[in-house]
């Protein structure tokens, strides 16, 4: 683990909070997988198992006024940002009580209250949106920044390059966060990129960058602090590559024919929760009762979310064509 020496204000409470957030995502998604097998959740569902340190390390560093653009593997980002677990799960149930009224599902969690601009299921599709959000802030002189998450698969898309260029060219406050989990669905980085060092791509666009061990939540948080500070002070983009690994299948339909079990096992030893928890224990920063309390609080929150999802209601079919265009009330408050 990276010793948190460069952050003297890190309290024990804060460090336990990081662990709890990671456990919260992990346990929540384990429940989602269970609900998926029960067919409570359908469609495509992508789990964040192994990558939790990225969202947990980056998102709390942002301010409330900042904006977030995420991908289709965004349950963790939504939860850490503060989208209630109840409405996230109701969304995955397809209930109208969901954070996107059941119109989006697992891949399209949105929440205006927390400036969460959604799970985007077109790889690379969220990057231009992030550029535009930041452009609006720049033109108005607002000091918000936009954090844009994407996987290394997006690097092969033209929109990645167009967006980095525009953000640098126009001086836009975007924090690009690449969650490099080494596989674009089942295609390994080495067989999709001629230059596999993703961080180096940013240099071509004159964007300051840093690569960090994305399995180390303390390291991610420290890097995110540097990155966010840089974006806020310079009003220019910054590129943070978080090197991580997806421990579970790409989606619930993935037989994982493209990678060895042995490789997954190697990464399992580096996985962020066990590793961070072990470090906390070795440094006597956590006690068994802390962990027990955390687990029981998370279990209670999940139980509440499941109850909320179950109790949620289906939108009447008569409303099928709503939300295609703005409605009168929505127009009035534009």
């Amino acid at each position, binding site marked *: 683990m990276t010793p948190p020496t460069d952050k003297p204000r890190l309290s024990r409470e804060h460090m336990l909070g990081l662990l709890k957030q990671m456990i919260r995502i992990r346990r929540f998604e384990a429940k989602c997988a269970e609900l998926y097998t029960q067919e409570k959740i359908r469609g495509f569902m992508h789990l964040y198992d192994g990558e939790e340190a990225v969202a947990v390390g980056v998102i709390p560093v942002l301010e409330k006024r900042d*904006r977030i653009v995420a991908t289709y593997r965004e349950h963790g980002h939504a939860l850490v940002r503060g989208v209630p677990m109840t409405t996230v799960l109701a969304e995955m149930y397809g209930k109208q009580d*969901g*954070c*996107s*009224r*059941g*119109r*989006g599902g697992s891949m*399209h969690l*949105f*929440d*205006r209250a927390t400036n969460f*601009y*959604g799970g*985007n299921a*077109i790889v690379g*599709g969220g*990057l*231009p*949106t*992030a*550029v*535009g*959000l*930041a*452009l*609006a*802030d720049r*033109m*108005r002189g607002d000091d918000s920044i*936009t954090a844009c998450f994407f996987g290394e698969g997006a690097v092969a898309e*033209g*929109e990645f390059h*167009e*967006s980095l*260029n*525009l953000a640098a*060219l126009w001086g836009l406050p975007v924090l690009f966060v690449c969650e490099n989990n080494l596989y674009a669905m089942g295609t390994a980085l080495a067989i999709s990129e001629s230059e596999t060092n993703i961080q180096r791509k940013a240099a071509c666009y004159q964007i300051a960058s840093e690569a960090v061990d994305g399995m180390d939540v303390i390291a991610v948080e420290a890097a995110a602090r540097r990155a966010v500070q840089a974006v806020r002070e310079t009003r220019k983009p910054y590129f943070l590559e978080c090197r991580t690994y997806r421990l579970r299948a790409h989606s619930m339909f993935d037989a994982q024919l493209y990678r060895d079990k042995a490789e997954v096992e190697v990464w399992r030893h580096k996985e962020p929760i066990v590793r961070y928890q072990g470090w906390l224990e070795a440094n006597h920063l956590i006690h068994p009762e802390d962990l027990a309390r955390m687990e029981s609080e998370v279990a209670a929150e999940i139980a509440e979310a499941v109850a909320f999802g179950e109790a949620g209601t289906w939108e009447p079919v008569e409303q099928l*064509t*709503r*939300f*295609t*265009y*703005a*409605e009168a009330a*929505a*127009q009035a408050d*534009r």
Partner: protein
Amino acid sequence: MPQEMIHPGTTELTYRDAVREAIRDAMRRDDRVFLMGEDVGRYGGCYAVSKGLLAEFGPERIRDTPLSESGFTGAGIGAAMAGMRPIVELMTVNFSLLALDQIFNSAVTVRHMSGNQFGVPLVIRMATGAGRQLAAQHSHSLEGWYAHIPGIKVLAPATVEDARGMLWMALQDPDPALIFENVMLYNMTGKLAADAGPVNIDKAAVRRPGRDISLITYGGSLWKTLEAATVLAGENIDAEVIDLRSLRPLDDATIMTSVARTRRAIIVDEGWRSGSLSAEIGMRMVEQVFWELDAPIGRVCSAEVPIPYARHLENAAIPQVPNIVAAAKAVFGRA
């Protein structure tokens, strides 16, 4: 003298000037409005629409972009979601295909996918249509494709009034609006009232009243259709000409009222026939006014070929006055 022909209180200007006036007016009225696209600033716009605006509004609001159609269209989407009112200019409809992912997968879907939490009040303008010998990557009429998509508005100004007046209303719309400007109209002159301003963007217009047949068209084909109506008048066929103006939503009421009265209809559409907007309009007539019809519905569309370079072939590929006249006469069983 041309000046003497202009009614007091009107000015004569080109369609291009009218679009420019619309942009200038919107920029003055609302500081959230800005224009971005390839060569809109220093070059003055590929079709000279934005010439002079850079000097007036500066490079932040008349924003030249790199050749990144997807990137800057997406930036327009993000800026709109954050409360700005961007006008994105895509040089031609063929280039809009490079931004189609952003238009379709983001601009159109966000309101729905987010359960109405976010909207995209974005206006995208682009040139469309054939007639300048620009061949098969600059000349198509794909507005009908876009009109297929629920979640956007598709506008086709054919007159200087509409070129001047539609933009502001499109900017007031809380959802994405696409404005298609036919390249053959930019040099066309027309009269505009000195106090001309916003116009409605959801109604079709009867440009020439008539009793015998309804000729339904939009955009660059409007003027050919009006000319055809004049020819038909000489042959004792009194044609009504309807300018759709909005391709999505379609103003069914105006179309059906006309057709129910004339009992005959021809659709003139520079798009291809197969799977087209003309097919949609024809089918709506079948659904809504079938029993009022006295003759089969006719169509004049583009030939099913990429637009060729050679002038005579290009002319032959798209609707022309003689085709429209012939199609209308055929409805009456006349050659």
